């Protein structure tokens, strides 16, 4: 598969309309854009910017939520360097991001493609696969996961048939994180639904054009489906990565807010939460949040830079 066919195939079938002139004029577009963006801009100023900037300010303070914040310069950031649990949480989070995001997306993409290829009972399968996502972050998951991975859980029962006696997977520091990866993969329904919507949106004309060019089904898949789905893959990749960096709820529920055993599921935001809401070090928590923001921003910028090489947009000129 040459790089060319993968990235630039679809425009073949459509009339080329690349004039120098941009109808309507740049200025008119600018005015229109700001009308479209009015709610967004209001939200930006009123809802988003204020807390964002407030938290930035707090990151340079000692703020225990009960007393007034007190400026302490870079102390919070210095403290991070020496904080063992901080680094433990960084390790846990990186491992989680690197493993669970690709796994979950691969699952979601594979099933979306299989389901989309004229499978009967699509709606039924789709709902079934989405069901876990509905409950993925409810308190019931704690009990559920104990039923599966606990000392007397289903997994150990099955292992028992083969004469293997297992310990609770949730209480072993070496396996606890893996159970959370499994939980994340289990809730692949959200990215899958987005993939399915993306597949739905590919205009039938493009397939027709490809057929006119004599492309078979496999060829159509690689030259139409894959490139046109790349913006959606990109979306899922970017947001699932951001989401994984911020993973909180599931670890919070399953480890009762502890991140245990022995900090093996102490996600970055879980530690941040403990610092902010349990130790009342909201200044430190805010500093941690902004460090996380910088890291995610760099990773996301990297995604965007790399996207030039593999993401194909229908509006590219």
């Amino acid at each position, binding site marked *: 598969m040459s790089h060319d066919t993968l990235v630039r195939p679809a425009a073949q079938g459509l009339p080329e309309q690349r004039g120098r002139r941009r109808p309507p004029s740049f200025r008119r577009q600018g005015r229109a854009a700001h009308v479209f963006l009015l709610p967004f801009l*209001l939200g930006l*100023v*009123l809802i988003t*910017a*204020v*807390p964002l*900037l*407030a938290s930035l*300010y*707090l990151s340079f*303070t000692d703020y*225990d*939520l*009960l*007393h*007034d*914040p*007190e*400026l302490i310069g870079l102390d919070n950031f210095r403290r991070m360097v020496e904080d063992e649990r901080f680094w433990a949480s960084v390790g846990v989070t990186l491992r989680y991001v690197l493993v669970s995001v690709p796994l979950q997306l691969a699952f979601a993409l594979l099933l979306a493609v299989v389901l989309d290829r004229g499978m009967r009972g699509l709606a039924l399968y789709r709902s079934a696969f989405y069901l876990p996502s509905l409950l993925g972050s409810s308190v019931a998951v704690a009990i559920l996961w*104990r039923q599966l991975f*606990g*000392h007397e859980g289903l997994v150990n029962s099955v292992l028992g048939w083969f004469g293997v006696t297992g*310990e*609770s997977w*949730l*209480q*072993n*520091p070496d396996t606890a994180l893996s159970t959370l990866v499994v939980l994340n993969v289990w809730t692949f329904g959200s990215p899958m639904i987005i993939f399915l919507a993306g597949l739905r949106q590919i205009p039938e004309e493009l397939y027709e054009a490809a057929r006119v060019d004599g492309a078979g089904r496999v060829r159509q898949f690689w030259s139409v489906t894959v490139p046109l789905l790349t913006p959606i893959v990109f979306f899922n990749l970017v947001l699932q990565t951001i989401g994984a960096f911020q993973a909180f709820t599931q670890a919070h529920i399953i480890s*009762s*807010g*502890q991140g*245990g*055993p*022995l*900090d093996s599921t102490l996600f970055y935001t879980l530690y941040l939460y*403990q610092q902010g*809401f*349990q*130790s*009342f*070090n*909201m200044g430190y928590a805010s500093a941690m949040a902004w460090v996380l923001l910088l890291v995610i921003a760099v990773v996301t910028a990297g995604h965007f830079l790399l996207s030039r090489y593999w993401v194909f947009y229908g509006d590219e000129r």
Partner: protein
Amino acid sequence: MDHLNRRRFMQLVGLGALGAAGTTALTACGGGSGGNSIRYAWWGDTVRQQKYTAALEAFAQQNPGVEVRPEFADYDAFQERITVQTAGRDVPDVFWIPSPHVMSYHDAGLYRRLDDIPSLDLSAFSAAQLDSFKIDGELNTLPRSVLTAAVRFNQTFLDEAGAQLPADDAQNWTWDRLSEFLIDYSRDAPPGRKGIHYNAQTDLCFEAWLRQHGQDLWTADGRMGFDAAALAGWFEWWEVLRRAGAATNLSEQEGAQPEWPVVGDKVLVTFGNSNHIADEAPMFPDYEFGLRPMPVLPDAAAGHRFGYLSRIAVYQGIDDESVDLAGRLVQFNINDPQMLQLVGLSVGAPANPAMLRAAYDVANEDEKKMLAVVERELAEEQKPRYEAPAGSGTWRSIMTRGVEEVALERASVSDAAARVIADIDRELGQAS
């Protein structure tokens, strides 16, 4: 200078608020509470929610024209919400105080003094009792109830095994005798049954251990009151049981904080708070449970007995015209038999001696066992106990990690103990 900083922060936040106020002309239905309306915040499960709602209804009936606005949530959510409310200076008028934050809230000036409210009658308490409620010499909270550390045992299991606990007297009811007994019991116990759960992080029981050893959990000046040796001794007591197969391991009990539904039919004995029997015994209706005070060292330090007070407070920033009503509501909580009748005893025994006696009339069999244990504990000499200082909010988590290190055999008892001490010390240092 604190004020300057606070003002700047509020300005920053308020700036956006003003902008929004300009664009959106909106009126809220909330706002401050007037003289005939009052906010009451508490935590618990849905059963407790129903009982307290009924009680607040009764209070409203006693006080015509009064409006009570309940703010209820489960324990963790309650803490999150009241923390956020505190930051926004929008605290409920009357609220329960979660144990880790008694001193933090006090330092933040959240409590109003309670000894100058005419509608609040404190005559049921002795002067000594009132003294023991004070924080930094000020009477600004009152106990809704008192909890003690206790040992609960499954009488049904004992009968099945034809066994008897060591006699309940100073010579026999000791840590060593209990340990030996549990090891003996576990040796012949039915499969899947052990003597005790592994509950080394239960705070009241640990505190009992410390006080018997002449130490304290916290000191008057807000420091740790115990050393690595006492902690190591505590860990070792549990490790002996675990290594002998007399305590469930962390895998069997799903974690360092064993939950009752998981271990209820796996173990003979559990350590915990005396009030837990009220909610937990009914979860295994086929079993009969007994309750005892903690075992005692043969040479236990004098005055080691103690009760933990669950406190209720009135918000410092309450409107002046609401103070009288708040006083009446607190009065209703701690002094009114009708309240007791409606809410029952799941939060523990009343600290008010007259109410404690009245409680026997509304208590069921299990709750009577709790009342008896609490009465016995309180009847004995007690040296003062101090609340967890600000900055100690996470000491339980630190303790849990220590327990995990020990019980998962990742660290020696003495190393783990030293680490717990160092970590708690660091947290306390950061807060001050």
